[in-house]
């Protein structure tokens, strides 16, 4: 971290937990000499080797910091998803869009900048009934987003593409990350799953992909150190259905018709329990899948957690509020007259291309375990199971 060579990285949006942790992770990279964290409010936790500079990216002062510190890599993470944390939709939009414009303007003026890494999101693809199953990087949303976070991100990506055209000497890497999930993440999707009773949209089952928070750090670190340019979808392997995810959480789901989910969402938002933006509602209705072939083959990044594992790690911190049916079934299974452990019928040819659940193909009754919290004996008599 000291010494001559090495990169000087500027990270925006370090006041939030994910940004702070990512900045720290980047600082640990041996090829990085210095990491400067920038935000309007100081980070609330330990920033480690990151030197924090209090500055607003909406202000031209950012250009001075870039010039003075001789920054060669800019990591832009300051894109916020919820108006609640910013204090209103207009502030959020200003932070996201105007902030990005200013930052990119400053980068364009700074000859020292060599690399730009932007953390974007798969929300840009939208979610609708006319979506292809898996979005590749070249695809556009079927309906252009009209408002909210999705529109902000679409505009930000537009500015980033414009910047890449104007500064062809700068390597621009845009990471479209799937919903980041993990025990420490506070985001619309995690607060949704933290609800004691999870409302779902009646008659629909969304496909979801998750990215573990550790993998987000790793991919940003990787993007800083590598020299691959381009736009990449970043997500854990495999797909979870919303119903499946809720079952793995062992929380009761309440299917509500779509309009009721919307009004419930606004009620929850005013109660500050969870935030249901329209794009999240359509995500929970239709779901979304992104193709990560380019991430594997071009970017050369391999997430440590699959979607299912990332979700299991998130779920391991949540107490179950339901799961009575499972406990009843487990009870029946235990009381069965001695049954030898056997392998479940592997006649089912696991769906081709399906990943992330190799433990579920061989599943003996006695060793049947709940995926979400296998480590925890959740019934006080976990030792009583026949092995």
């Amino acid at each position: 971290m000291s010494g001559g060579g090495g990169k000087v990285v500027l990270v925006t949006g370090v006041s939030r937990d994910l940004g702070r942790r990512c900045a720290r992770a980047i600082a640990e990279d041996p090829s990085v000499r210095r990491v400067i964290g920038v935000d309007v409010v100081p980070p609330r936790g330990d920033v480690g080797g990151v030197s924090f500079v209090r500055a607003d990216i909406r202000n031209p002062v950012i250009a001075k910091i870039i010039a003075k510190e001789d920054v060669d890599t800019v990591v832009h993470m300051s894109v916020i998803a919820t108006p609640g944390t910013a204090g209103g939709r207009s502030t959020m939009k200003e932070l996201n869009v105007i902030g990005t414009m200013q930052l990119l303007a400053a980068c364009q003026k700074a000859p020292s900048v060599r690399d730009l890494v932007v953390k974007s999101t798969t929300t840009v693809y939208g979610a609708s009934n006319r979506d292809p199953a898996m979005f590749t990087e070249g695809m556009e949303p079927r309906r252009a987003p009209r408002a909210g976070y999705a529109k902000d991100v679409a505009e930000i990506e537009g500015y980033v593409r414009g910047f890449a055209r104007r500064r062809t000497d700068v390597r621009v890497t845009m990471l479209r990350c799937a919903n980041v999930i993990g025990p420490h993440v506070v985001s619309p999707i995690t607060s949704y799953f933290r609800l004691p009773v999870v409302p779902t949209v009646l008659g629909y089952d969304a496909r979801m992909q998750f990215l573990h928070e550790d993998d987000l750090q790793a991919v940003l670190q990787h993007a800083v150190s590598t020299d691959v340019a381009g736009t990449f979808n970043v997500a854990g392997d495999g797909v979870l259905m919303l119903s499946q995810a809720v079952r793995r959480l062992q929380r009761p789901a309440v299917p509500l018709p779509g309009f009721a989910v919307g009004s419930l969402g606004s009620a929850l938002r005013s109660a500050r329990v969870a935030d249901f933006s329209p794009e999240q509602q359509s995500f929970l209705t239709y779901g979304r899948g992104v193709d990560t072939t380019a991430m594997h083959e071009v970017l050369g990044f391999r997430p440590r957690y699959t979607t299912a594992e990332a979700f299991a790690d998130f779920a391991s911190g949540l107490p179950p509020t339901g799961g009575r049916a499972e406990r009843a079934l487990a009870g029946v299974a235990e009381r069965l007259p001695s049954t030898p452990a056997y392998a479940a019928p592997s006649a089912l040819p696991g769906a081709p291309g399906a990943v992330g659940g190799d433990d579920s193909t061989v599943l003996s009754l006695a060793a049947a375990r709940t995926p979400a919290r296998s480590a925890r004996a959740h019934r006080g008599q976990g030792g009583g199971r026949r092995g």
Partner: protein
Amino acid sequence: MGDAEIIPIGTRGKPGRGTGKAPSSAARGLAAGGRSAEPTDPPTDPPVDPPADEAIPPAAPGEPGAPEAPVEVDVEVEVEETAVVAAGTSSVAARERHPLAGIPVSAWLSAFQQAAVEVFGEHWEPRLAQFLAFLRRRVTGDYVVDEYGFDAEITQSFFMAALRPIAQQWFRIELRGVDNIPTDGGALVVSNHSGTIPVDGLMTMVSIHDATGRHLRPLGADLVFRMPVVSSLARKSGATLACSEDAERMLRDGELVGVWPEGFKGIGKPYSQRYKLQRFGRGGFVSAALRTGVPIVPLAVVGAEEIYPLVGNIPALARLLGVPYIPITPLFPLLGPLGLVPLPSKWLLEFGEPIRTDEYDDGAADDPMLVFDVTDQVRETIQQTLYSLLVQRESVFR
């Protein structure tokens, strides 16, 4: 039963009818040791007992409307009486216990075992354990779906099981040319579409699965994925949106993909135009097959046209609901939900010779003339097969 309160008719019903405790005179007359039952419950006997000894008097004096009663009463009374006598002779304990409390656990277990053998057969223990493990997997979400949301487990053990009797018993589907379906690798099954609601797609899925063991992955219109319930069922059973991206992706992954290029024009055509193929879209399915080099298997389905003969439409209501048409069939709005039962027509499914697409050069998919040619070839094959099947068919329902 012993405590049931029987309200006696007329003057406490003494002559013929037993009260809850006291047997009727008829029963007493029938029973050999008729009096033996009596001592067990003397306290309840009312003091005016003596006349009860006499054999069935026709009616209590002064009771109107009784004369025709005795025969009926007699029958009832006998049934009650045997119960009372049995209770009286066996033991007093039987009368006081809770209905379920006294049955020993072993009896429950053996009953349970017998039931399990009945349901699951001789090897019921592993079967039941399997079933329980299946239920637990479902309840805890411990199963795998592929990237399209296809849930192979529930499709095999539930959807297919539900559709199979309809395919085999109701429509009596007869398959021809099953050998034309490749046993592995990608292939595109192209079929005609008919029947007002896409029952033919479901039947094709279950028939192909039973004949070859492969899952047909249907491509559905976006309407399918907009409708609640239908949308989630479609994804779970392996369908995905009919767009070139998904079709090519599935074909590249070596799936057996089903497509109905006529779309709503096909299933929503009036009965008078039955078995006349509509326009085959824009030939997108051919470009997908050309790009991925998979064979096209033409499929002709005969019989699906007759399940719901479409004779009318309510366009205004259809527009209001955002669906392509609201069908009127001879039975549908007329008989209400009963009209939704499809007519039991006899179905014939003939798979034609696969049309190879891997011989064309690379740019073939972008050559519109070639795409149209192949589309026409597929369409003509299906149309000719339909005509020949119709000639062979004896009648609609047989």
